[in-house]
């Protein structure tokens, strides 16, 4: 009885030495022991989904040149649609923009839209990063100031040309193929026309507007995805009875090397929050959606 026990006892140390022999196992053990949670990258492909900003910022020392275009209302079932080739003859809005990364988390941008001749200066800062085994979300803060240099401005005051946006972007890459985000958004316009009242509830327009945005990307292949975003407005003045609608856009995203293309349909002609949150007058129900595209080309310095 004691003999086999003794043998076993003394063979034990040599056995443990043998089990270390496999170098790969040793490496794996070490790797597992000090594994840091990896940050989740590429939640979205570009800095914008369709209308909504994404959690992504332009990376350090890169410049993102974007052309965003919205054609006219499609109105497929009536004469207006047929005589403008479903809106292709019209350009509701065009925005050219440049975004530059100061660091990998902080970017600044400038853009110019056709609507209200808006020139917007913006800043985005990503302050939280999703981790593979840890923090489930990423978060960023976006803000802009837009100037409308139109010929006539109420009371001829410069301040009346200005509007501002503050936005929190919370996003999660749920699977490699599905990314979702929510965007609590605040828009302040220095001047609004309060003389027109809502036909039913008699409310007037407001300087401060709140909206909650939702966005998602669903990858079908590595380089092809479905995208959609929606902004739910909280304003008594803005409802269907007063011909105001929430901005809803759906589209596809195609990536080819340094370019990202979006082809989409949206009921808003506004491209920046200062426009599409207060001024979406197109209704999906009345076929007032517009074909649009976004093109992004990234340059590295």
């Amino acid at each position, binding site marked *: 009885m004691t*003999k086999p026990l*003794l*043998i076993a006892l*003394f*063979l*034990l*140390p*040599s056995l443990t*030495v*043998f089990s*270390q*022999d496999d*170098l*790969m196992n*040793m*490496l*794996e053990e*070490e*790797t597992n022991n000090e594994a840091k949670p*990896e940050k989740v*990258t*590429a939640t979205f492909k570009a800095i914008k989904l369709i209308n909504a900003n994404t959690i992504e910022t332009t*990376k*350090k020392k*890169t410049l993102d040149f974007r052309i965003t275009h919205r054609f006219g209302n499609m109105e497929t079932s009536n004469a207006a649609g047929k005589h403008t080739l479903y809106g292709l003859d019209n350009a509701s809005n065009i925005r050219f923009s440049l975004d530059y990364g100061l660091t*990998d988390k902080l970017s600044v941008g400038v853009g110019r839209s056709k609507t209200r001749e808006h020139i917007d200066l913006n800043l985005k800062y990503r302050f939280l990063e999703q981790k593979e085994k840890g923090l489930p979300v990423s978060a960023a803060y976006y803000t802009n100031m837009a100037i409308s240099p139109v010929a006539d401005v109420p009371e001829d005051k410069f301040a009346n040309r200005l509007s501002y946006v503050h936005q929190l972007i919370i996003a999660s890459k749920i699977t*490699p193929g599905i990314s979702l985000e929510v965007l609590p958004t605040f828009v302040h316009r220095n001047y609004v026309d309060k003389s027109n009242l809502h036909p039913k509830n008699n409310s007037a327009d407001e300087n401060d507007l709140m909206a909650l945005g939702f966005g998602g990307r669903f990858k079908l292949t*590595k*380089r092809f995805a479905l995208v959609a975003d929606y902004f739910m407005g909280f304003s008594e003045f803005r409802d269907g009875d007063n011909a105001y609608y929430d901005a809803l856009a759906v589209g596809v995203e195609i990536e*080819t*090397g*340094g370019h990202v293309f979006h082809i989409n349909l949206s009921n808003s002609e506004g491209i920046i929050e200062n426009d599409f949150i207060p001024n979406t007058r197109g209704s999906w129900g009345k076929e007032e959606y517009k074909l649009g595209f976004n093109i992004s080309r*990234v340059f*590295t310095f």
Partner: protein
Amino acid sequence: MKTFILSISLLLSVSLSFSQNIYKAVQGEIAFFSETPIENIDAHNTNLKALLNTDNNEIAFVVTNVGFKFEKPLMEEHFNENYMESDKYKVSSFKGTISGDLIEYAKDGEYPVTAKGTLDVHGVSQEREIKGTLIVKGGMITMKSEFNIALKDHKIKIPKVVVQNIAETVKVTVNIDFEKK
């Protein structure tokens, strides 16, 4: 009889634990280079672990795929998202044995070696013979190697639109310093 077994097993365990001459990577870099007329891609990775057993000439190294750093951030994103699929295939590794009959680990010198073993990249294993050099100097061993990886051997697909930007075969450079563990 009892004393005999006792002493044998004691000797065995002691000698075995002393004979483990394992060297560990203290610093190193794995880089790859893709050259085409349009664009060169150069990526470097210092996030690696490697071990060398000088008793049986076994070598193993593991590199974290997201650790490859590129000159352009977009290249890095595409590497991880589209080509290496780093969320699925977290590491690349090599495990093999070096032909080290002529190596004297205790003596300073430079030895040409061939490592024979399994290269695992993008979840696809390939049996490879890789040439390199071992430099022994003052108790430290430096391993240097340069070899090619054909992307199709590891099922890494390059779409037509970027076929002119990415080489079919990339050159890999390994440079690792080992110290005794």
